[in-house]
């Protein structure tokens, strides 16, 4: 049971987001000073003083980006209508609530209510990070759309010979989001000629987002759209560090370079030399779901779960082979069919989104009501 809280009226001295923003999506910089000694998970950290925001009545969604990177974490949030939801006593709770960035609404049950929201930020060392709040104002809508830019890095392995098959398989992406009444309303395209980016470390996504893109003549790049990058390989830092895809933010936002897109590894989706276009688009749909604010319905250990009440949960007791993971074969009927299950099984692709996930999608920062 989530803690419920009263409506918290704004107070004098609160940062007035209504004054600082306009209809639609605004990026509002905040002055934050991280300087007070504190602790997080038993470690010494430095924390900011409480900073209170006044959220306007027509706010649809909000995301707090501590520093646009990964050096700052929100550690406390007391929100109008919801009470404090961040439990900083465990990794699991932090994962569930705030990483990589704090966003609201988390569900219809954990909304973004107007009024006073107070938070703290923490970091390893004292500094004044470039904190921004992304705020969407207006109407949520029951049908929404967003724009995409398809950006292919030279050396990714994709070329004109893939165009027809890619276009044909894109209906998988469209059908997944159509369940939630979400449409891709416009698409642009471009290429990056720097082929050194075709094999990309996942901690260098900013390099990709900053690279020069040559816009397609037939479908020019769209400002403010989600940038969907295709590289050959995407590498994490861990030992077996190949990734199939990664969203630059949960949620992402186009106006922050470090959070502006989604990256997909082409070779991760090959079977032999051939490309599994359907699997590619399903991975893209999963990562785009993250970019719009959706979290895994269940994480790899069977916990935590997302905040949505209608997404199936596959809990730890379903780990029948006791290997510490709840795998797709253990979670059939318990969430493996959902697009946002932690394990996207490329041999039995997910097909489902729920009404609760649709609510989050319709609320997303870069969605436009149709």
């Amino acid at each position, binding site marked *: 049971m989530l803690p419920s809280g009263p409506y918290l009226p704004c107070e004098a001295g609160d940062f007035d987001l209504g004054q600082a923003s306009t209809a639609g999506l605004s990026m509002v910089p905040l002055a934050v000073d991280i300087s007070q000694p504190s602790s997080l*998970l*038993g*470690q010494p950290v430095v924390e900011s003083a409480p900073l209170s925001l006044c959220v306007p009545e027509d706010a649809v969604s909000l995301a707090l980006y501590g520093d646009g990177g*990964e*050096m*700052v974490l929100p550690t406390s949030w007391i929100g109008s209508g919801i009470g404090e939801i961040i439990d900083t006593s*465990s*990794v699991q709770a*932090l*994962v569930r609530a705030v*990483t*990589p960035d704090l966003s609201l609404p988390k569900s219809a049950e954990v909304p973004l209510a107007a009024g006073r929201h107070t938070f703290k930020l923490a*970091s*390893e060392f004292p500094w004044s990070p470039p904190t921004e709040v992304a705020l969407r104002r207006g109407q949520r809508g029951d049908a929404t759309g967003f724009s995409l830019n398809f950006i292919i890095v030279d*050396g990714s392995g994709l070329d004109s010979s893939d165009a027809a098959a890619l276009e044909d398989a894109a209906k998988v992406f469209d059908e997944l989001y159509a369940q939630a009444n979400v449409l891709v309303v416009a698409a642009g395209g471009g290429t990056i000629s720097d*082929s050194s980016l075709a*094999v990309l470390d996942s*901690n260098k996504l900013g390099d990709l987002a900053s690279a020069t893109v040559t816009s397609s003549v037939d479908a020019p790049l769209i400002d403010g759209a989600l940038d969907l990058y295709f590289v*050959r*390989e995407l590498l*994490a*830092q*861990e*030992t*077996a*560090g*190949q*990734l*199939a*895809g*990664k969203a630059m933010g949960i949620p992402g936002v186009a106006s922050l370079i470090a959070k502006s897109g989604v990256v997909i*590894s082409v*070779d*991760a*989706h*090959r*079977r*032999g*030399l051939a490309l*599994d276009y359907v*699997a590619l688009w399903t*991975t893209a749909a999963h990562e785009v779901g993250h970019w719009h604010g959706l979290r*895994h319905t269940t*994480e*790899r*250990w069977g*916990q*935590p779960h997302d905040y949505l009440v209608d997404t199936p949960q596959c809990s730890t007791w379903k780990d029948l*082979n006791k*290997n*510490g*993971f709840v*795998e*797709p074969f253990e979670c059939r009927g318990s969430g493996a069919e959902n697009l946002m299950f*932690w*394990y*996207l*099984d*490329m*041999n039995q692709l997910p097909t489902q989104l729920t009404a609760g996930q649709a609510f989050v999608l319709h609320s997303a920062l870069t969605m436009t009501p149709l």
Partner: protein
Amino acid sequence: MRSIPFPLLASALAGLLGISCNTAREPDAPQSPPRPAATESAGEPSSTTQSKPVGGAEHEGCERAAIAQLISAPEDVPTPADLTSTCARPQATLIAIAQDPDGLGLTRLRAIELLGTFRSDSAVAALAKLARSEGDLASIRRTALVALGRSTAAGDARRTATAQAALTDPDPHVRAAAEKLLAK
């Protein structure tokens, strides 16, 4: 409680990758170079020639389908410990997965990377062969070279020969991996 560098904690949380979400465990520590498993003899035993019968549960865990599924979660990178907790002797299975020409790219690439945590003759031989597989994906060859670098010590003859041969690979990323390997 051991100290976890904050940026790495933030990064681990932010990426939701490799995170131990079991509250009884700490988050994954920053990745240090993997400790190689105990080396095996030159006459590398396959799973069928083990001197000790494998228990039922362990055998099931070592089945190819089980290993392939374990290492194929698109956003979650398996650790060597994840692998060996499921199957104590996964090398033969990893080699089979890595060498499957029709296998899913993600699974093959992960298998190759995990082979790099073993220093056995069979692992090294498999990686060297994959690094020279001309008709295969360049990503397979590149990843095999990187894994070979983890699996062998500087100056290892197999490593040197494989890397030198890769200097003329048509793919620039493979050539770069070979240069890096020779420079170590």
